[in-house]
């Protein structure tokens, strides 16, 4: 087991190094001078040259890559061109904000989806199953930007119940979190519900469940003790994948509600070609993706011993 985990961690480290090289090269090939971005479009050529020289941009490419990589592993991600502060000062608070948003989103999605998915999967084809399935398909089909506009129109402009933006500029305000969480939950719960339903429905048709029912075990015990554990393997994978989605795929929601999260930071950095922020964000996103996959791999072995033994 330890070897299995070590192998997975080794793979993760290798992926990180390869991705770091790819990101660095891609951003180096991006047209436009860093000096122009820092000094503004109206700076003179002489001023730009002086800046590039002072900040080590005239060094060879490989020297800059290794300097960047060695600084990166020590937690120094460079200075943001847009924010004019060390990247870490911007990155960690933004990442934390997205973690908060993701936590509340998951806190609602996971129980709701699992319960609805299991309920629907238990009685495949019944009215309850059809109702849950249709609702799930409809909510998942509506893109986040559309539901953001719809919920804003209803709760901000119409009923005037909720604040329209979620900048949290006067400290954490739970009310400001309602709309972003609502949009994310509505978009995502249907997907997890349907995966859980499909998995549950499949398990419910297996021989061992039929045997358990026929030998007279209480139905509640059959579901909780025998069906659920196997039915949770697919939703577990989906939930782990949703962590990646919540990290960098929430750009639309963060943008629409001016929520200062990781996705919005990545978007701002990309629009402003803020190279060091893009590099750091990309590395964090890749790390989270690789880490969740590693966790998922380890998690499978507990949910399904066959994977462990193979």
């Amino acid at each position: 087991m330890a070897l299995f985990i070590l192998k997975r961690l080794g793979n993760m480290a290798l992926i990180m190094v390869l991705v770091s090289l790819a990101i660095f090269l891609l951003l180096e090939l991006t047209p436009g001078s860093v000096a122009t971005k820092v000094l503004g479009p109206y700076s003179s050529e002489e001023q730009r040259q002086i800046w590039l020289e002072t900040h080590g941009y005239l060094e060879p490419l490989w020297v800059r890559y290794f300097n960047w990589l060695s600084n990166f592993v020590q937690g120094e991600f460079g200075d943001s061109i847009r924010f004019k502060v060390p990247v870490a000062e911007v990155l960690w608070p933004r990442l934390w904000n997205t973690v908060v948003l993701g936590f509340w989103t998951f806190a609602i999605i996971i129980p709701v989806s699992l319960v609805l998915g299991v309920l629907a999967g238990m009685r495949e084809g019944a009215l309850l199953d059809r109702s849950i399935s249709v609702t799930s398909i409809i909510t998942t089909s509506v893109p986040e930007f559309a539901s953001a506009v719809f919920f804003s129109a209803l709760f901000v402009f119409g009923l005037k119940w909720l604040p329209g933006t979620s900048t949290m500029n006067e400290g954490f305000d739970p009310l400001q979190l309602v709309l972003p969480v609502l949009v994310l939950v509505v978009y995502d719960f249907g997907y997890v519900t349907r995966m859980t339903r499909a998995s549950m429905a499949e398990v419910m048709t297996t021989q061992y469940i039929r045997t358990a029912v026929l030998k007279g075990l209480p139905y509640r015990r059959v579901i909780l003790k025998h069906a659920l554990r196997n039915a949770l393997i697919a939703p577990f994978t989906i939930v782990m994948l949703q962590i990646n989605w919540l990290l960098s795929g929430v750009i639309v929601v963060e943008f629409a509600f001016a929520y200062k999260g990781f996705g919005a930071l990545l978007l701002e950095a990309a629009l402003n070609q803020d190279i060091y922020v893009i590099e750091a964000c990309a590395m964090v996103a890749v790390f989270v993706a690789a880490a969740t996959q590693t966790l998922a791999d380890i998690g499978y072995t507990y949910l399904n011993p066959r994977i462990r033994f193979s």
Partner: protein
Amino acid sequence: MPERRKGALHPHIPELREKLRRGEIDRRDFLRTATLLGMSSAAAYVMAGLRPGQGVTSAAHAQTPKKGGNLRVSMNVKAITDPATYDWSEKGNLARHMTEPLVRINKDNIAEPYLAERWEASEDLKTWTFHLRKGVKWSNGDDFGADDVVFNFERWLDPATGSSNQGRFSSMTETIDTGKKDKDGKPVMSTVGSAGAIEKVDDNTVRFHLNRPDLSLPESMGDYPALIAHRRFSDEGGDLVKNPVGTGPFMLQDFAVGEKAVYTRRPESWWGGDVYLDQITYVDHGDDPSAQLAAFASDQIDTNYRTNIEQVDVMKSIPNLVNYETVTAQCGVARMKVTEPPFDNKALRKAIQACIDNDRILEVVYFGRGAPGEDHHVAPIHPEYAELPKLKQDYELAKKYLVEAGYPDGIQIRIDCVANPTWEQNACKAMAEMLKPAGIDLAINIMPGGTYWDRWLTTPLGFTSWTHRPLGVQVLNLAYRSGVAWNETSYANPEFDKLLDEAGTLVNVEQRRQVMAKLQQILQEDAIIHQSSWRSIFITAHERVKGIYAQVAEEHHYNKVWLA
């Protein structure tokens, strides 16, 4: 060089007063020119028959201001480390509550004394003496004085600072040979401050010795990168956020780029008198205009930095909101690089010009809010603007020019423009539709702002937005004089430069207008730019916000704003 005695009126002022009396110039022109020539703002307003502080465009409201409250403003919160390197007016707005300029451009587009109490120009406009306001205190307790001003100017003119003020005050710079050679063996030249250009006369007086007349020196001091930092700014870290020392009425309380900036009123009295707000809070809602709208709807903000033209009517639908509009000299120009084919072909440029209907573009793209452009970059609100015969759309003429240019079957061209604000790409789309009937196929390359500003000086055809500048000569000097840094068209015309030199020495607006008419004609005739409109700008505020206005350069002047 003739110098006038202290306190004497500039010789041109009595003549100006006479012209105002005869109705040959309006009050705005009188105020602008009189203050430009060093007359105190209060005296100029009295001479013009107005109360000091009273606008020339609207009646003053007789309400008693109320103290207290927090003004919440929606605006991008950008880094404000060093005022000298600011490249966006939002940065100027964030710093302006702490650090102040020598001269401020007021709501009537007039340069008014600020940290400089008054100034005098020599008759040849090459020596300017600025008398600084006495009794102004920095927030660290130091006295404000000439050392601060000298420090800032020397720093601005140093190429290592990277300040756009070096171009703004180019009449105080010279180009020298550094003694180094570039990779091609050519001498490396450097632009530095001219020796002796900045003279400290005494603790409260600074004199500037220019190498050419510069009528717009006070106006340039009102631009946002010309905020005055403390004389030890560089020694104390060169970071306004970490060391927020200023002369302004507010002090920085909290700052997070991309999120918020909070200012509270300084406890000690401010040199400018009463300040009503307790706090100003800037909130960054990103680049999505609908987030700003939602923030207004749920009463999370009181005012904003800018209301996009598409949202002006939407704002009206939200109760208690008021839109403020001001006509500006802000515009966008589709400019052609005259050194790059195919735009080195004047007949082609004329063909493009003949296809464009500027009135129509203004109507379609900007809902008619502004004034149509005339392809010469001098605005009707510039004091020296000369009215020329209107340009007309004429496809027959366009086709003749195309034949002359060697493109009888038409031509494909491409314009680079930014994605936001959308009116800029919409202007390009309208142009493309107008060029089609003549056989000119205009492709539009829409790109993020950051990408466009990397190539704005080099692209053969680009759509560039230009901010407001109070004087027409300022714009022409910045953008169309041969060889200047921001000459994006690479236009070089000795006759034009000579006339521009002449215009820069003419204090008399009427005389300057006659020269400007020739300059405008030359630009229009050479068809190096297509400028569809002069645009109005808008802000929105809750009706409880009093004393607020949309300033021509989108500056925030909140020192006298109050909440009812």
